[in-house]
């Protein structure tokens, strides 16, 4: 356990020194402010672009619009940014050979993987919490949120999907050991999910549902219980990929 905490501290200092903490804080704050802002400014922007005299009856923005922006911006921009930031977790160490010294001193190989994943998990928690809190504060100030259902559960869906992608990135990055392989594997996986989404049967189990349905959860069109299977599958896949990474890394030649 001591080693685990020691290596975790090393990971933490590394992430601060490589400006990861700084970037995550700034970018996810920007995203948090951007959501209610886009929702609020949209009618005014549309007004500007309409020709003179044309009447466009736009409804006033509501709390739902703000959260729609959240579920559009954070999975697209936020997740891409996040995967890019953490895509070189393993390959950097493998390329430089910095792990060899630590491993010969008796550090467990599984410790390396679990610590790295846990570090990324902490950062993703921070990022989502930050973005969610800022959007929540602005939305609560400008609009009435009482009509929305399961705000926190909807956000947790996004959170779990992010963790799944992180686990896959870590696996790809360790298995192929080049800086872009993590991103490539994650991209292929996401494309695969999108292809599967063409078939309506996949809607009952596909992890992709976790990022596409939150708006409907908010309006109450989809019940929480319908997302139970995608939720469990995502968590299961996440654990599987972390386990695959550990078992592969144990046999890897450094």
């Amino acid at each position, binding site marked *: 356990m001591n080693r685990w905490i020691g290596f975790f501290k090393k990971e933490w200092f590394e992430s601060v020194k*490589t*400006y990861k903490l*700084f*970037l995550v804080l*700034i*970018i996810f*704050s*920007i995203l948090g*402010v*951007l959501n*209610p*802002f886009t929702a*609020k*400014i949209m009618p*005014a922007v549309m007004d500007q672009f309409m020709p003179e005299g044309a009447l466009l009856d736009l409804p006033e923005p509501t709390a739902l619009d703000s959260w729609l922006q959240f579920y559009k911006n954070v999975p697209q921009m936020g997740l891409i*940014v996040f995967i*890019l*930031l953490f*895509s*070189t977790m393993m390959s950097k160490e493998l390329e430089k050979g910095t792990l060899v010294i630590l491993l010969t001193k008796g550090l467990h190989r599984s410790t390396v993987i679990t610590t790295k994943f846990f570090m990324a998990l902490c950062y993703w928690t921070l990022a989502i919490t930050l973005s969610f809190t800022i959007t929540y504060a*602005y939305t609560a100030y400008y609009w009435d949120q009482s009509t929305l259902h399961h705000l926190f559960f909807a956000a947790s869906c996004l959170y779990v999907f992010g963790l799944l992608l992180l686990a896959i990135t870590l696996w790809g990055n360790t298995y192929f050991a080049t*800086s872009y392989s993590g991103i490539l594997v994650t991209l292929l996986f996401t494309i695969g999910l999108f292809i599967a989404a063409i078939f309506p049967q996949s809607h009952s189990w596909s992890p992709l549902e976790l990022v596409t349905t939150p708006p409907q959860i908010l309006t109450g069109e989809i019940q929480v219980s319908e997302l139970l299977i995608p939720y469990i599958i995502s968590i299961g896949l996440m654990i599987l990929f972390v386990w695959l990474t550990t078992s592969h890394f144990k046999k890897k030649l450094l």
Partner: protein
Amino acid sequence: MNTNWDLLLEYLPFLIPLILLQVGLGIFSAIHVIRHPHYRFGNQVIWLLIVLFIQFIGPLVYFVFGRGDGDGRTN
């Protein structure tokens, strides 16, 4: 003109943090680019342009992929 000012005032609670964060990130990255003139690829002018004109993806790409190692700091 009057209506534009009203609009601006209405969106000020959004604009102030947005501008502060984005400009702050841009300037911080630009200073880093100038003070550490060793990059994995590209040169100073290219990185300055990327960092200052591509909103938040620019600084991110610089810090993750472009920033050189052992760039003159003593540690």
